[in-house]
């Protein structure tokens, strides 16, 4: 009743179940359950393989069937050689290399080895599934194409995106928009040409697409080797700059880089304006045309305000965010956050978070304009 192969797998199934029970009983806790689940899963896999062996009778040719040695699936020659053993060997070698070099090599090699093994096993099985080579090829496609196509598609897309990103990081900033326009135009034009030519051979379309992808990848590799262009690092707006205690050179450098552009104008806690006559006022959603000189904000939450400078002098908005003792009781420095210095009409976004109530600070919470006395908006943090 039981074939040789099925006996092997049934034995393995029994051992796995026994192992799961023993492991769970002796180890206990979360680890015990985890191991038991793993071993039970293994038992299910072995049981499945045992079932396949039973169903196919170990793929043995019944000895008494006349002429079967010529017609049976097992008697048919393999349709072609297989590359998968080679790929699997590369994966196995990569694992060894990865173990002594970089983790990423190891991880990629494991994936390659697993993929090669799956492909190899399914191919070997499908080539013996029946005596018909075309049927065998079709069941291989049915099994593996749903896996292969999405994975290959994602890989190709990843390669294209990666190549393109390398190009954009290497090309000068000013050339970026031109590259975008040119590549977009080429893709659109090629798409139009291909779409307008009815009956175009599949191989031509595939050739053009491959050529484009290879070109992109090639230029991407060259760009990656060449390295990124120098990207300016914006200096940090420190409390010293905000409170006017930093050096003039450092402050000027930061303000020089101010873009004066604001991406997010909605969803702010308040719009703070320095008017033409140098009055600092806040406007709050829900109170149109009411000038606020006091704002309440929740503690430990990100707060965003939008500052606009309507005064003729370049100014920054500074949020004084308190002075706190360190954990050892030593006095700390005053914390502050601020915008860059804005010319007349300039706007900037200020985002900050206050984690302690105003009572915990030895200096007040407030919005101020450095260099402009008498103008402040109190910040209440209950």
């Amino acid at each position, binding site marked *: 009743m039981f074939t040789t192969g099925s006996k092997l797998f049934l034995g393995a199934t029994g051992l796995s179940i026994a192992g799961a029970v023993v492991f769970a009983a002796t180890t206990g806790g979360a680890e015990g359950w985890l191991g038991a689940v793993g071993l039970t899963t293994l038992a299910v896999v072995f049981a499945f393989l045992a079932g396949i062996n039973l169903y196919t009778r170990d793929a043995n040719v019944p000895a008494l069937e006349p002429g079967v040695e010529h017609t049976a699936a097992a008697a048919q020659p393999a349709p072609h050689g297989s590359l998968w053993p080679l790929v699997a060997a590369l994966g196995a070698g990569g694992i060894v290399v990865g173990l002594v070099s970089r983790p990423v090599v190891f991880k990629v090699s494991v994936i390659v080895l697993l993929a090669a093994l799956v492909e190899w096993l399914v191919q070997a099985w499908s080539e013996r599934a029946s005596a018909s080579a075309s049927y065998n090829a079709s069941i291989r496609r049915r099994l593996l194409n749903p896996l292969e196509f999405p994975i290959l598609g994602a890989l190709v897309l990843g390669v294209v995106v990666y190549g393109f990103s390398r190009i954009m990081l290497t090309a000068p900033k000013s050339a970026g928009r031109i590259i975008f326009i040119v590549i977009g135009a080429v893709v659109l034009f090629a798409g139009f040409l291909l779409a307008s030519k009815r009956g175009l051979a599949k191989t031509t379309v595939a050739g053009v697409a491959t050529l484009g992808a290879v070109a992109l990848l090639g230029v991407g590799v060259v760009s990656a080797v060449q390295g990124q262009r120098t990207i300016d690092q914006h200096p940090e707006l420190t409390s010293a700059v905000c409170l006017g205690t930093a050096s003039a050179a450092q402050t000027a450098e930061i303000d020089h880089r101010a873009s004066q552009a604001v991406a997010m104008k909605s969803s702010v806690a308040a719009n703070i304006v320095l008017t033409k006559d140098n009055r600092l006022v806040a406007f709050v*959603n829900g109170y149109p045309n009411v000038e606020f000189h006091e704002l309440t904000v929740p*503690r430990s939450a*990100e707060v965003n305000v939008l500052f606009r400078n309507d005064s003729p002098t370049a100014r920054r908005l500074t949020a004084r965010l308190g002075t706190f003792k360190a954990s050892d009781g030593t006095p700390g420095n005053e914390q502050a956050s601020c915008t860059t210095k804005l010319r007349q009409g300039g706007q900037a976004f200020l985002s900050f978070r206050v984690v*302690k109530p105003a009572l915990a600070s030895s200096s007040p919470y407030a919005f101020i304009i450095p260099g402009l006395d008498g103008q402040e908006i109190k910040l209440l943090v209950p």
Partner: protein
Amino acid sequence: MHRSGDNVSSLSATPQNRRRWPIAALVVGVGVVLGGCAKNAPQDTFRPAGSNSQRIDNLARPVFYIAGIVGVIVLSVITYCVIKFKDRGQDIPEQTHGNPKLEIALTILPAIILAAIAVPTVVTVFALDKKSDSQCVINVTGQQWWWEYDYTAGNCGGVEITAPIVTAGELVIPAHTNVLLRITSRDVIHSFWIPRLNGKRDAVPGRLSTLRMEASQPGIYTGQCTEFCGLSHARMRQAAVALDTNDFKTWVDNQLQAYKAPDPGSLAATGEATFLAQCSKCHQINGILKPDGTPSLAEPDLYEVSGAAPNLTNLMTRTAFAGWTFDLISDKCRNELWNAKPADFGALYLQGVWMDTPAGATTPVCFNEANLRSWLRNAPAMKPMFSDPTQLASTGGRYRGMPNLNLSEAQIDQLVAFLLERK
């Protein structure tokens, strides 16, 4: 094997069985529909209790009727075609392709219906986004798994708030007043929803969204977080309590009252010390002083992922706690409060746990002491939270929610006595 398969096949195809299927489907369908019915459904969106929810209702009903009629027509035609043209072995009818008149009609008709629906929809969207007529602004901040409300100093529906008020769980608002909620979050995305007063609004960290709210009469309107936000999302509830202007003023005045320390030597006084030792790291009670005479300031930013814990200054003025999940008042008193007439509601609500308590009595009749005791005994056992001190490596040692403080029964007695005076 063959025979058994045939039997199954013949059984399922008998005319008697064929007649039973529609009846079974009808019974299941009616059951599902009736399952949605409830006598007392406090979160019923079809019972608007304010101008904003009424606007939504005024839009949703006609749209629902139109969609329903269209649905019935489409389903009827499909059903008719399925039955009429069922394959009974007849010849395949003549095959045709295209019917320009029909196609144009079936394009224009839905376009007209959609255009007609779009007009009131856009009007409603803009009306619900209006902020210029606000009479009160309240900050609403969500975190795992409770809501905090802070009232900015200023005028709120004719009542002057002289200093910020911070409370949790219950949003107290003046009735007949356009309240503007400014909603944000401290940790993950939540969604604020009081179905009978308005639609939902997401609370997104770093962003501030607004939501209009107006209650047409005093009462309690419940809701819950509607954006999955982690372990105890289902236990992140909230309520809006609408009060008449006079009652709202009384509530505001009470919230702003100075801290009153317990009588020296009382159980509550011992509870104050226990509170300072065990609870004040995260929970703030405004005005409470440390033994050295300096103000006690909670530092939830050091212990909580969200950086906040509910302010307990006037805990006993609320009817529920812990994300408005557990009642602070007994079932009987809750029913009495929830079913009170609008004219009587404010007076009852303002009594909090002291509702129905005779003058001079020291123990409140409505206090749900068992709930508070259970919470103090082992909070995570009542509400799942990320508060196991042995598993906080991923959060830098900070909790999501309240941990089990392993308080003794004596400490619980003291804390209950102390908290009972926070009214």
